[in-house]
Protein backbone atom coordinates (compact mmCIF):
# COMPACT_ATOMS: atom_id res chain seq x y z
CA UNK A 1 0.00 0.00 0.00
CA UNK A 2 1.49 3.37 -0.97
CA UNK A 3 1.86 6.08 1.58
CA UNK A 4 -0.09 8.42 -0.73
CA UNK A 5 -3.05 6.10 -0.64
CA UNK A 6 -2.82 5.83 3.13
CA UNK A 7 -2.79 9.61 3.41
CA UNK A 8 -5.88 9.89 1.20
CA UNK A 9 -7.73 7.35 3.35
CA UNK A 10 -6.66 9.18 6.47
CA UNK A 11 -7.81 12.54 5.11
CA UNK A 12 -11.14 11.11 3.97
CA UNK A 13 -11.73 9.65 7.41
CA UNK A 14 -10.84 12.93 9.05
CA UNK A 15 -13.17 14.82 6.73
CA UNK A 16 -16.01 12.36 7.39
CA UNK A 17 -15.44 12.63 11.14
CA UNK A 18 -15.48 16.41 10.93
CA UNK A 19 -18.72 16.43 8.92
CA UNK A 20 -20.34 13.98 11.35
CA UNK A 21 -19.33 15.93 14.41
CA UNK A 22 -20.47 19.18 12.83
CA UNK A 23 -23.92 17.78 12.09
CA UNK A 24 -24.17 16.54 15.67
CA UNK A 25 -22.93 19.85 16.95
CA UNK A 26 -25.65 22.23 15.98
CA UNK A 27 -29.22 21.08 15.88
CA UNK A 28 -32.19 22.88 17.32
CA UNK A 29 -35.95 22.80 17.46
CA UNK A 30 -38.54 25.46 18.12
CA UNK A 31 -42.20 25.88 18.88
CA UNK A 32 -43.64 29.37 19.30
CA UNK A 33 -41.38 31.32 21.64
CA UNK A 34 -39.51 28.23 22.83
CA UNK A 35 -36.25 27.18 21.25
CA UNK A 36 -34.49 23.92 22.18
CA UNK A 37 -30.73 23.93 21.59
CA UNK A 38 -28.72 20.78 20.98
CA UNK A 39 -30.68 18.11 22.84
CA UNK A 40 -28.31 15.21 23.60
CA UNK A 41 -28.35 12.16 25.77
CA UNK A 42 -25.44 10.33 27.32
CA UNK A 43 -24.38 6.91 26.09
CA UNK A 44 -25.76 4.36 28.57
CA UNK A 45 -24.24 1.16 29.87
CA UNK A 46 -26.14 -1.90 28.73
CA UNK A 47 -29.48 -2.46 30.54
CA UNK A 48 -29.23 0.90 32.32
CA UNK A 49 -32.45 1.62 34.28
CA UNK A 50 -32.10 5.37 33.69
CA UNK A 51 -30.43 7.77 31.26
CA UNK A 52 -29.52 11.44 31.54
CA UNK A 53 -30.39 13.92 28.80
CA UNK A 54 -29.42 17.54 28.34
CA UNK A 55 -30.37 20.61 26.29
CA UNK A 56 -30.71 24.38 26.35
CA UNK A 57 -34.14 26.05 26.47
CA UNK A 58 -34.57 29.64 25.34
CA UNK A 59 -37.79 31.54 25.84
CA UNK A 60 -38.04 34.58 23.55
CA UNK A 61 -41.60 35.34 24.65
CA UNK A 62 -42.81 38.04 27.04
CA UNK A 63 -44.22 35.49 29.51
CA UNK A 64 -42.34 32.93 31.59
CA UNK A 65 -42.83 29.30 30.64
CA UNK A 66 -42.18 26.02 32.39
CA UNK A 67 -40.63 22.77 31.17
CA UNK A 68 -42.58 20.10 33.03
CA UNK A 69 -41.19 16.88 31.53
CA UNK A 70 -41.88 14.84 28.46
CA UNK A 71 -42.19 11.51 26.77
CA UNK A 72 -40.29 9.36 24.31
CA UNK A 73 -41.05 6.05 22.61
CA UNK A 74 -37.79 4.66 23.98
CA UNK A 75 -38.53 5.07 27.71
CA UNK A 76 -41.39 5.02 30.24
CA UNK A 77 -41.27 8.77 30.73
CA UNK A 78 -39.00 11.82 30.95
CA UNK A 79 -38.67 13.69 34.24
CA UNK A 80 -36.85 16.86 35.22
CA UNK A 81 -34.24 16.21 37.91
CA UNK A 82 -31.58 18.20 39.66
CA UNK A 83 -28.21 17.02 40.91
CA UNK A 84 -26.53 19.08 43.59
CA UNK A 85 -23.12 18.61 45.19
CA UNK A 86 -22.38 19.64 48.75
CA UNK A 87 -19.52 18.48 51.01
CA UNK A 88 -18.53 15.95 48.35
CA UNK A 89 -21.97 14.34 48.45
CA UNK A 90 -24.12 14.09 45.32
CA UNK A 91 -27.86 14.46 45.83
CA UNK A 92 -30.39 13.93 43.10
CA UNK A 93 -33.99 15.08 43.38
CA UNK A 94 -36.89 15.14 40.93
CA UNK A 95 -38.29 18.62 40.24
CA UNK A 96 -42.00 17.70 40.09
CA UNK A 97 -42.94 21.20 38.94
CA UNK A 98 -40.23 21.25 36.32
CA UNK A 99 -38.13 24.33 35.67
CA UNK A 100 -39.17 27.86 34.85
CA UNK A 101 -37.72 29.64 31.86
CA UNK A 102 -38.09 33.38 32.46
CA UNK A 103 -39.44 35.67 29.74
CA UNK A 104 -36.51 36.36 27.45
CA UNK A 105 -34.42 33.93 29.47
CA UNK A 106 -32.51 30.74 28.85
CA UNK A 107 -31.79 27.65 30.96
CA UNK A 108 -29.04 25.15 30.31
CA UNK A 109 -29.53 21.54 31.35
CA UNK A 110 -26.03 20.11 31.66
CA UNK A 111 -24.16 17.32 33.47
CA UNK A 112 -23.77 17.99 37.18
CA UNK A 113 -26.89 20.14 37.45
CA UNK A 114 -30.44 20.10 36.14
CA UNK A 115 -31.04 17.30 33.67
CA UNK A 116 -33.78 15.28 32.06
CA UNK A 117 -34.01 11.73 33.28
CA UNK A 118 -35.30 8.98 31.04
CA UNK A 119 -36.97 6.41 33.25
CA UNK A 120 -36.50 2.78 32.20
CA UNK A 121 -35.14 3.15 28.67
CA UNK A 122 -36.15 0.15 26.56
CA UNK A 123 -32.91 0.21 24.58
CA UNK A 124 -29.25 0.91 25.14
CA UNK A 125 -28.24 4.37 23.96
CA UNK A 126 -25.40 3.94 21.49
CA UNK A 127 -23.05 6.76 20.51
CA UNK A 128 -24.09 8.45 17.27
CA UNK A 129 -27.68 7.22 17.35
CA UNK A 130 -30.68 9.46 17.93
CA UNK A 131 -34.23 9.20 19.23
CA UNK A 132 -37.39 11.30 19.14
CA UNK A 133 -39.02 12.86 22.17
CA UNK A 134 -41.81 15.27 23.06
CA UNK A 135 -41.21 17.96 25.65
CA UNK A 136 -44.12 19.43 27.60
CA UNK A 137 -44.27 23.14 28.32
CA UNK A 138 -46.93 24.86 30.43
CA UNK A 139 -47.50 27.66 27.87
CA UNK A 140 -45.93 26.58 24.60
CA UNK A 141 -47.47 23.11 24.80
CA UNK A 142 -45.59 20.20 23.28
CA UNK A 143 -42.32 20.52 21.40
CA UNK A 144 -41.12 17.66 19.20
CA UNK A 145 -37.37 17.16 19.35
CA UNK A 146 -34.70 14.60 18.60
CA UNK A 147 -31.89 13.72 20.97
CA UNK A 148 -28.49 12.72 19.64
CA UNK A 149 -26.56 10.22 21.73
CA UNK A 150 -23.07 11.35 22.74
CA UNK A 151 -20.43 10.04 25.07
CA UNK A 152 -19.27 13.45 26.26
CA UNK A 153 -20.64 16.99 26.16
CA UNK A 154 -19.90 18.74 22.85
CA UNK A 155 -18.02 21.69 24.28
CA UNK A 156 -16.84 21.12 27.79
CA UNK A 157 -14.44 21.67 30.63
CA UNK A 158 -11.58 19.60 29.28
CA UNK A 159 -13.26 16.22 29.69
CA UNK A 160 -13.68 15.88 25.93
CA UNK A 161 -11.61 13.29 24.12
CA UNK A 162 -11.21 15.13 20.83
CA UNK A 163 -7.74 16.49 21.46
CA UNK A 164 -5.64 14.75 18.87
CA UNK A 165 -1.87 14.61 18.67
CA UNK A 166 -1.18 12.50 21.74
CA UNK A 167 1.89 10.35 21.85
CA UNK A 168 1.12 6.69 21.22
Amino acid at each position, binding site marked *: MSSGFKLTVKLTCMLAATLLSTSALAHQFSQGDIKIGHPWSRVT*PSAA*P*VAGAYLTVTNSGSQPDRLAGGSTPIADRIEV*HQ*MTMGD*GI*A*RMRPLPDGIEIAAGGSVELAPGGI*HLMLIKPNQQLIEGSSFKATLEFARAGTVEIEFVVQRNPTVQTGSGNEHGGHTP
Partner: protein
Amino acid sequence: MSGLPAFRLTIWAAIVVLGMFLIVSTQLSGGSPTGETSSGTARVGGPFSLVSHTGGRVDNQSLAGRPYLVFFGFTYCPDICPTTLFELTDLMTELGPVATGFKVLFISIDPERDTRETLASSMTSFDSRILALRGTAAETDAALEAFSAYAKKVPLEVGEYTMDHTAGVFLMKSDGSFGGMMDMHEPRETRLENLRRIAKDQVTGS
Protein backbone atom coordinates in the same frame (compact mmCIF):
# COMPACT_ATOMS: atom_id res chain seq x y z
CA MET B 1 22.46 62.84 83.67
CA SER B 2 23.13 60.26 80.99
CA GLY B 3 21.59 57.51 83.20
CA LEU B 4 17.99 58.22 82.11
CA PRO B 5 18.32 57.39 78.38
CA ALA B 6 20.22 54.19 79.31
CA PHE B 7 17.40 53.22 81.68
CA ARG B 8 14.79 53.92 78.95
CA LEU B 9 16.73 51.78 76.52
CA THR B 10 16.82 48.91 79.00
CA ILE B 11 13.03 49.13 79.52
CA TRP B 12 12.39 49.13 75.75
CA ALA B 13 14.72 46.18 75.25
CA ALA B 14 12.90 44.28 77.99
CA ILE B 15 9.53 45.00 76.33
CA VAL B 16 10.81 43.79 72.96
CA VAL B 17 12.27 40.60 74.43
CA LEU B 18 9.09 39.92 76.40
CA GLY B 19 6.97 40.54 73.29
CA MET B 20 9.06 38.15 71.21
CA PHE B 21 8.85 35.54 73.93
CA LEU B 22 5.05 35.87 73.97
CA ILE B 23 4.78 35.56 70.17
CA VAL B 24 7.05 32.52 70.05
CA SER B 25 5.30 30.76 72.94
CA THR B 26 1.81 31.32 71.45
CA GLN B 27 2.97 29.95 68.13
CA LEU B 28 4.45 26.91 69.81
CA SER B 29 1.34 26.11 71.82
CA GLY B 30 -0.87 26.81 68.79
CA GLY B 31 1.37 24.71 66.59
CA SER B 32 0.64 21.30 67.99
CA PRO B 33 -3.12 21.18 67.23
CA THR B 34 -2.55 22.26 63.62
CA GLY B 35 -0.10 19.42 63.23
CA GLU B 36 -2.90 17.00 64.03
CA THR B 37 -5.65 18.32 61.77
CA SER B 38 -4.61 15.96 58.98
CA SER B 39 -5.62 13.02 61.17
CA GLY B 40 -9.16 13.36 59.69
CA THR B 41 -7.88 11.90 56.43
CA ALA B 42 -6.17 9.05 58.27
CA ARG B 43 -9.60 7.53 58.80
CA VAL B 44 -9.72 6.64 55.11
CA GLY B 45 -8.50 3.11 54.46
CA GLY B 46 -9.94 0.47 56.75
CA PRO B 47 -11.07 -3.15 56.40
CA PHE B 48 -13.74 -4.05 53.84
CA SER B 49 -14.72 -7.17 51.92
CA LEU B 50 -16.98 -7.26 48.86
CA VAL B 51 -17.71 -9.44 45.82
CA SER B 52 -16.82 -8.27 42.32
CA HIS B 53 -19.10 -8.44 39.28
CA THR B 54 -16.86 -11.21 37.96
CA GLY B 55 -17.47 -13.27 41.09
CA GLY B 56 -14.27 -13.01 43.14
CA ARG B 57 -14.03 -11.59 46.62
CA VAL B 58 -12.07 -8.35 46.90
CA ASP B 59 -10.95 -6.97 50.23
CA ASN B 60 -8.42 -4.49 51.56
CA GLN B 61 -5.93 -7.30 52.18
CA SER B 62 -6.13 -8.73 48.67
CA LEU B 63 -5.49 -5.19 47.37
CA ALA B 64 -2.42 -4.64 49.52
CA GLY B 65 0.77 -3.82 47.64
CA ARG B 66 -1.06 -2.18 44.78
CA PRO B 67 -2.48 1.33 44.44
CA TYR B 68 -6.18 1.62 43.67
CA LEU B 69 -8.99 4.08 42.98
CA VAL B 70 -12.41 3.86 44.62
CA PHE B 71 -15.67 5.40 43.46
CA PHE B 72 -19.02 4.91 45.21
CA GLY B 73 -22.17 4.91 43.10
CA PHE B 74 -25.17 2.98 41.84
CA THR B 75 -26.70 2.01 38.50
CA TYR B 76 -29.94 4.02 39.01
CA CYS B 77 -27.75 7.14 38.91
CA PRO B 78 -28.13 8.85 35.51
CA ASP B 79 -25.67 11.69 35.82
CA ILE B 80 -22.54 11.66 37.97
CA CYS B 81 -21.94 7.87 38.12
CA PRO B 82 -21.85 7.13 34.38
CA THR B 83 -20.06 10.46 33.82
CA THR B 84 -17.29 9.50 36.24
CA LEU B 85 -17.03 5.92 34.96
CA PHE B 86 -16.81 7.09 31.33
CA GLU B 87 -14.19 9.68 32.30
CA LEU B 88 -12.15 7.04 34.12
CA THR B 89 -12.54 4.73 31.12
CA ASP B 90 -11.25 7.47 28.79
CA LEU B 91 -8.29 8.16 31.06
CA MET B 92 -7.44 4.45 31.31
CA THR B 93 -7.73 4.03 27.54
CA GLU B 94 -5.31 6.90 27.09
CA LEU B 95 -2.88 5.45 29.66
CA GLY B 96 -3.06 2.03 28.01
CA PRO B 97 -0.94 -0.64 29.77
CA VAL B 98 0.17 1.93 32.38
CA ALA B 99 -3.37 1.78 33.80
CA THR B 100 -2.83 -1.85 34.79
CA GLY B 101 -0.51 -0.44 37.47
CA PHE B 102 -3.55 0.41 39.61
CA LYS B 103 -6.98 -1.09 40.25
CA VAL B 104 -10.21 0.83 39.77
CA LEU B 105 -13.11 -0.13 42.02
CA PHE B 106 -16.72 0.96 41.61
CA ILE B 107 -18.48 0.15 44.89
CA SER B 108 -22.27 -0.06 44.72
CA ILE B 109 -24.03 1.71 47.56
CA ASP B 110 -27.35 0.24 46.38
CA PRO B 111 -26.90 -3.55 46.65
CA GLU B 112 -30.68 -3.90 46.85
CA ARG B 113 -31.10 -3.02 43.15
CA ASP B 114 -27.54 -3.58 41.96
CA THR B 115 -27.36 -7.34 41.71
CA ARG B 116 -24.17 -8.95 40.45
CA GLU B 117 -25.88 -9.52 37.07
CA THR B 118 -26.95 -5.86 36.86
CA LEU B 119 -23.41 -4.71 37.62
CA ALA B 120 -21.87 -7.21 35.20
CA SER B 121 -24.13 -5.97 32.42
CA SER B 122 -23.42 -2.35 33.29
CA MET B 123 -19.66 -2.85 33.35
CA THR B 124 -19.54 -4.04 29.73
CA SER B 125 -19.71 -0.36 28.74
CA PHE B 126 -16.61 0.69 30.65
CA ASP B 127 -12.92 -0.20 30.72
CA SER B 128 -12.73 -3.94 31.39
CA ARG B 129 -10.18 -3.29 34.15
CA ILE B 130 -12.81 -1.53 36.29
CA LEU B 131 -14.24 -3.87 38.93
CA ALA B 132 -17.76 -3.31 40.24
CA LEU B 133 -18.14 -4.46 43.83
CA ARG B 134 -21.17 -5.21 45.94
CA GLY B 135 -21.93 -6.82 49.25
CA THR B 136 -24.65 -7.38 51.81
CA ALA B 137 -26.06 -4.30 53.54
CA ALA B 138 -23.61 -4.86 56.40
CA GLU B 139 -20.63 -5.32 54.04
CA THR B 140 -21.63 -2.19 52.14
CA ASP B 141 -21.84 -0.21 55.39
CA ALA B 142 -18.40 -1.50 56.39
CA ALA B 143 -16.96 -0.40 53.02
CA LEU B 144 -18.48 3.06 53.43
CA GLU B 145 -17.01 3.28 56.92
CA ALA B 146 -13.60 2.18 55.67
CA PHE B 147 -13.49 5.25 53.41
CA SER B 148 -15.41 7.60 55.73
CA ALA B 149 -17.86 7.81 52.85
CA TYR B 150 -21.55 8.59 53.02
CA ALA B 151 -24.62 7.01 51.44
CA LYS B 152 -28.26 7.38 52.32
CA LYS B 153 -31.47 6.01 50.85
CA VAL B 154 -33.95 8.76 50.01
CA PRO B 155 -37.56 7.69 49.34
CA LEU B 156 -39.23 9.24 46.27
CA GLU B 157 -42.72 8.43 44.93
CA VAL B 158 -44.49 5.15 45.58
CA GLY B 159 -41.86 2.52 46.20
CA GLU B 160 -39.09 4.37 44.37
CA TYR B 161 -35.98 5.80 45.93
CA THR B 162 -32.69 7.45 45.10
CA MET B 163 -29.36 7.50 46.90
CA ASP B 164 -27.38 10.43 48.24
CA HIS B 165 -23.72 9.47 48.16
CA THR B 166 -20.10 10.57 48.36
CA ALA B 167 -19.19 11.21 44.74
CA GLY B 168 -15.43 11.72 44.71
CA VAL B 169 -12.74 9.32 43.51
CA PHE B 170 -10.50 8.10 46.36
CA LEU B 171 -6.84 7.49 45.55
CA MET B 172 -5.32 4.72 47.68
CA LYS B 173 -1.58 4.09 47.85
CA SER B 174 0.00 0.65 47.60
CA ASP B 175 0.59 0.59 51.37
CA GLY B 176 -3.16 1.00 51.90
CA SER B 177 -2.93 4.62 53.01
CA PHE B 178 -5.07 7.41 51.61
CA GLY B 179 -3.53 9.40 48.76
CA GLY B 180 -6.20 12.10 48.47
CA MET B 181 -9.23 12.68 46.26
CA MET B 182 -8.94 12.84 42.49
CA ASP B 183 -10.10 16.19 41.18
CA MET B 184 -12.21 15.45 38.10
CA HIS B 185 -12.27 19.15 37.21
CA GLU B 186 -8.51 19.37 36.83
CA PRO B 187 -7.18 19.58 33.28
CA ARG B 188 -7.06 16.20 31.58
CA GLU B 189 -3.26 16.26 31.37
CA THR B 190 -2.96 16.86 35.12
CA ARG B 191 -5.26 13.92 35.85
CA LEU B 192 -3.28 11.69 33.49
CA GLU B 193 -0.04 12.76 35.15
CA ASN B 194 -1.48 12.00 38.61
CA LEU B 195 -2.55 8.55 37.46
CA ARG B 196 0.89 7.84 35.95
CA ARG B 197 2.42 8.79 39.30
CA ILE B 198 -0.03 6.52 41.13
CA ALA B 199 0.73 3.64 38.76
CA LYS B 200 4.45 3.98 39.58
CA ASP B 201 3.73 3.71 43.31
CA GLN B 202 3.30 -0.02 42.82
CA VAL B 203 6.85 -0.45 41.50
CA THR B 204 8.49 1.43 44.35
CA GLY B 205 6.13 -0.04 46.93
CA SER B 206 6.65 -3.72 46.14
